[in-house]
């Protein structure tokens, strides 16, 4: 043995042992358990939220999402870093906002990148949409705000005819034509492709914009029906009754605490608490009091009961 193990085991009686045999037996046991579970309970494969599905099944929700983004109502509009420079809503604690430390790393202007840019692509083969986008660009900010506000309000009483969204007559400017362009884009299954900013297509590996488009009401409503929102322990469980990453329970629990779950800085607080727990666990051997937890609980007496029963072996280190 090495000097270290010789020193550590000096005077300790040894017994025969077969590392490889023990390892193979346990590996075999674990493999059988995993195979049985995999056959009996394959995990769910719940489909993604796709533009084509939302546009055809929930056209009003689709148009509402696009209109909100166009109006600047999306939470991403003033999210701050890493998407944009507006830090007014950035999470902070004691005046410290780590979110601002590295600046805008993934530039995103939702109304432009999620609506106007895709519509400009539609405009290539749909002149009505092209004219609507041109009218929108030529209008004043006040006009745009009035049109979108009126249109979004009208969506509350919208009807669907032949798969298209119908709102009551009103002064919406070019907004209805633009929204029809977005809806057509969605129905055609081209939304996600039109959102891509990657100039290395077809190697479009950054899926951020397509993932973020429906992140608010649409995704939230799907997650709610699957009991997967933050207040329902969100990430820690899977669709249905399958276990999710339950090892994140110590993190998810902070989102269940009244007051903290509605705190605008909840994410930062929860992460910092978990970081503190991790550091405590990491440095546990050196933390006075906490490093005596084993002595308080006494579990070791059960594990080493045979050792303590030995006539000559009171376990005292020689």
């Amino acid at each position, binding site marked *: 043995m*090495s000097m270290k193990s010789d020193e*550590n085991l000096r005077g300790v009686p040894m017994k025969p042992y077969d590392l490889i045999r023990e390892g193979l037996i346990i590996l075999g046991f674990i493999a059988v358990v995993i195979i049985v579970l995999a056959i009996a309970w*394959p995990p769910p494969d719940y489909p993604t939220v796709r533009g084509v599905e939302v546009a055809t099944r929930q056209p009003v929700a689709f148009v509402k999402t696009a209109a909100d983004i166009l109006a600047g109502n999306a939470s991403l509009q003033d999210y701050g870093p890493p998407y944009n420079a507006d830090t007014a809503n950035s999470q902070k604690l004691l005046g410290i906002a780590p979110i601002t430390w590295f600046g805008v790393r993934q530039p995103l202007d939702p109304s432009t990148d999620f609506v106007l840019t895709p519509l400009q692509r539609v405009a290539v083969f749909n002149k009505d949409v092209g004219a609507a986008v041109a009218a929108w660009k030529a209008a004043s900010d006040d006009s745009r705000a009035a049109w979108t506000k009126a249109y979004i309000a009208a969506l509350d009483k919208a009807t669907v005819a032949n798969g298209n969204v119908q709102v009551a007559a009103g002064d919406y400017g070019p907004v209805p034509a633009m929204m029809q362009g977005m809806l057509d884009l969605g129905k055609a299954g081209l939304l996600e492709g039109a959102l891509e900013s990657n100039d290395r297509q077809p190697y479009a590996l950054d899926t951020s914009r397509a993932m973020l488009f429906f992140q608010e009401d649409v995704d939230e409503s799907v997650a709610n029906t699957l009991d997967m929102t*933050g207040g329902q322990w969100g990430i820690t469980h899977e669709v249905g009754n399958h276990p999710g990453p339950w090892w994140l329970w110590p993190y998810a629990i902070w989102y269940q605490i009244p007051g903290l779950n509605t705190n605008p800085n909840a994410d930062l607080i929860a992460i910092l608490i978990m970081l503190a727990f991790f550091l405590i666990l990491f440095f546990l051997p050196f933390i006075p009091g906490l490093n005596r937890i084993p002595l308080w609980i006494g579990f*070791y007496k059960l594990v080493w009961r045979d050792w303590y029963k030995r006539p000559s072996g009171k376990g005292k280190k020689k």
Partner: protein
Amino acid sequence: MNLTRRLQEYTQRNMTLEDALPTRMPVYVNSVAYLFGVATLSALVMLILTGMILAIFGPNWYHVSGTGRFFNSLHFWSAQAFFGCLVLHMLTKLLLGAWRDGRWKTWMIGVLTLGVAIFAGFTGYLSATSFSSMWHAVQAKDAMNAIGVGAFFNTTNFGQVITLHVAFFPFLVVVLVAIHLAYIRHESPVRPYPLEKEEKS
């Protein structure tokens, strides 16, 4: 200075063949509590094997193939088994005070492995290309952004997420586990608490 000879001498001093592949064990190593580490390692072997099969056929395979779905299921339950055994392993080592007599490095590397493994599992859930992964990505980005990590780790960027899951985090986990195992075998299992000492306290 011959670096190879120095490495040889260092290895001979610190890791004999009997350390690495022991045929004897202290008599106090005599409980089920000692099996959770090997069980965690076994689940990690299953995770890597099933992950390699999934990597060969690509992330969409399990959506369109029964065989793919089976291997995805194996990978899923391997992850569950890995974390289940890991939690039991850490809990028993904590309750046995396994960091004593200079074994703090082994403990710390183990805790670090847990931290890295959590991110390995997290990026796995993000790589499932399902509603779960989509929802978790848009939700988790807020936490990552809040602590500034989001500037470098974009949970909604599938290209980044899957390479982290398939290459970066598994590599880190395997390296840390190898170091952890080397320390365990180098130091030998910790002695039982002396009863006299315990009675005095």
